[in-house]
């Protein structure tokens, strides 16, 4: 091998993390901090590239993990504008702010943090199977540099292999995402466009993005991520990219397109089981995405941190059964809330365009100061009395 890492025949790690996205490197960082010998394997040539993400995070979510740095922040966002099918614009009061990231730099920084804590990171390392012994995961099978098939043994494997995760399925965990829960997404990064650099726009409606929404997330003065997700079931008639092309042609006819990407967002409840003997799943692989917003950076990092800490503890105490605590910890921290959001999502995305317009008209009567996201939600529910009982059930 000319370059890259070579592994001795019987190389052994405490923890192997599959995938170097934010969830994987956060898991690696916290596991390494507790003294474990950690290896991160990334299938692509680069950490953080290609970017498959709208790149939006909240300030309060982000600072739990890393100090905001202008090096990887493209925009600071103070306002949201929600656009109904008839064009009515609602501006909720966010009581906070957020950022649009440069993920290709951000992911690098997170990987560097993990490496600084002692984790090893290897790219062009494609995990294509697990070492299983009597149902227990004891390591990974890896294709290195597209050429060399090797096995790496580990006490714990953490699957952070994204929306396309198969690590869990190889070990018997059912992480297949239902078609109606998979948001089929396309995004363009456009420049030379007229936007508000401190405002995120969200467009709703069956003609714009059935079963999902369209977003405009600013990246500086005249550049933005413009993307949309449609529920997978609607892809039968028409694909995500075709909806996006139509919107961009109409709304930004003179834009220069810097990049076009595809992606899948698992807007589901967390998978029923995210731990088995020797294996934990984090991030998109565990379906730890906020099912309403489709946001997964912070929630995946929260999953990664919990998993990394518990895995590190299990190594330190030499008790691998401790990893089963992870499922419960995740549920308490965020999993239960995601289950509630999932129920909310199921009726929000069934609203007809007429209903959305009606809700928007109600909301537009509320002054900005009072229009918090919570207030917005309850007003929306009030316009559809049949929902009140459904919603009550969520909070009982």
């Amino acid at each position: 091998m000319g370059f890259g890492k070579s592994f001795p025949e019987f190389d052994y790690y405490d923890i192997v993390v599959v995938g170097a996205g934010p969830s994987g490197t956060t898991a690696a960082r916290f596991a390494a901090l507790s003294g474990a010998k950690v290896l991160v394997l990334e299938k692509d040539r680069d950490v953080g590239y290609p970017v498959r993400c709208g790149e939006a995070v909240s300030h309060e979510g982000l600072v739990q993990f890393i100090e905001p740095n202008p090096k990887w922040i493209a925009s600071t966002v103070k306002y949201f504008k929600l656009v109904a099918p008839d064009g009515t614009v609602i501006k909720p009061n966010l009581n906070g702010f957020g950022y649009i990231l440069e993920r290709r730099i951000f992911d690098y920084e997170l990987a560097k943090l993990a490496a600084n804590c002692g984790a090893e990171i290897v790219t062009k390392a494609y995990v294509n199977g697990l070492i299983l012994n009597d149902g227990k995961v004891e390591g990974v099978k890896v294709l290195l540099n597209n050429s060399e098939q090797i096995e790496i043994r580990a006490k714990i494997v953490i699957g952070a292999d994204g929306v396309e995760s198969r690590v869990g399925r190889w070990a018997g965990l059912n992480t297949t995402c239902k078609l109606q829960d998979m948001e089929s997404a396309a995004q363009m990064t456009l420049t030379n466009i007229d936007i508000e650099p401190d405002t995120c726009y969200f467009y709703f409606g069956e003609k714009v993005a059935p079963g999902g929404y369209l977003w405009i997330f600013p990246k500086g003065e005249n550049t933005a991520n413009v993307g949309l997700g449609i529920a997978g079931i609607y892809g039968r008639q028409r694909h995500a990219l075709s909806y996006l092309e139509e919107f961009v042609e109409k709304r930004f006819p003179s834009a220069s397109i810097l990049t076009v990407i595809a992606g899948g967002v698992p807007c589901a409840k967390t998978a029923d089981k995210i731990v088995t003997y020797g294996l934990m799943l984090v991030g998109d692989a565990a379906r730890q995405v906020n099912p309403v917003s489709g946001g997964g950076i912070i929630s995946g990092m929260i999953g990664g941190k919990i998993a990394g800490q518990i895995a590190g503890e299990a190594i330190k105490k030499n008790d691998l059964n401790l990893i089963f605590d992870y499922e419960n910890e995740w549920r308490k921290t965020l999993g239960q809330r995601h289950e509630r959001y999932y129920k909310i999502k199921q009726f929000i995305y069934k609203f007809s365009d007429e209903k959305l317009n009606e809700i928007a008209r109600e909301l537009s009567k509320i002054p900005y100061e009072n229009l918090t996201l919570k207030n917005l939600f309850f007003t929306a529910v009030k316009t559809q009395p049949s929902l009140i009982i459904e919603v009550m059930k969520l909070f009982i």
Partner: protein
Amino acid sequence: MVIIKDNKCDFCGCCVGVCPENCIELYEAKIEIIDEICTDCGKCVWACPFDVLELRVTKSKKGEIA
């Protein structure tokens, strides 16, 4: 049988996430569908954001026209 009908694939993995048979292999810049395992359910075809996949009418695994 699901075929990869052109070279527009962006390797995003959306199809892999919905595949109930776990029969799609996604590399850095290549996908493969393992025909022997595929049941022609079509979920990957609809989930694909870029319209890369196509379900070809063929004899299904049960011997009926799919």
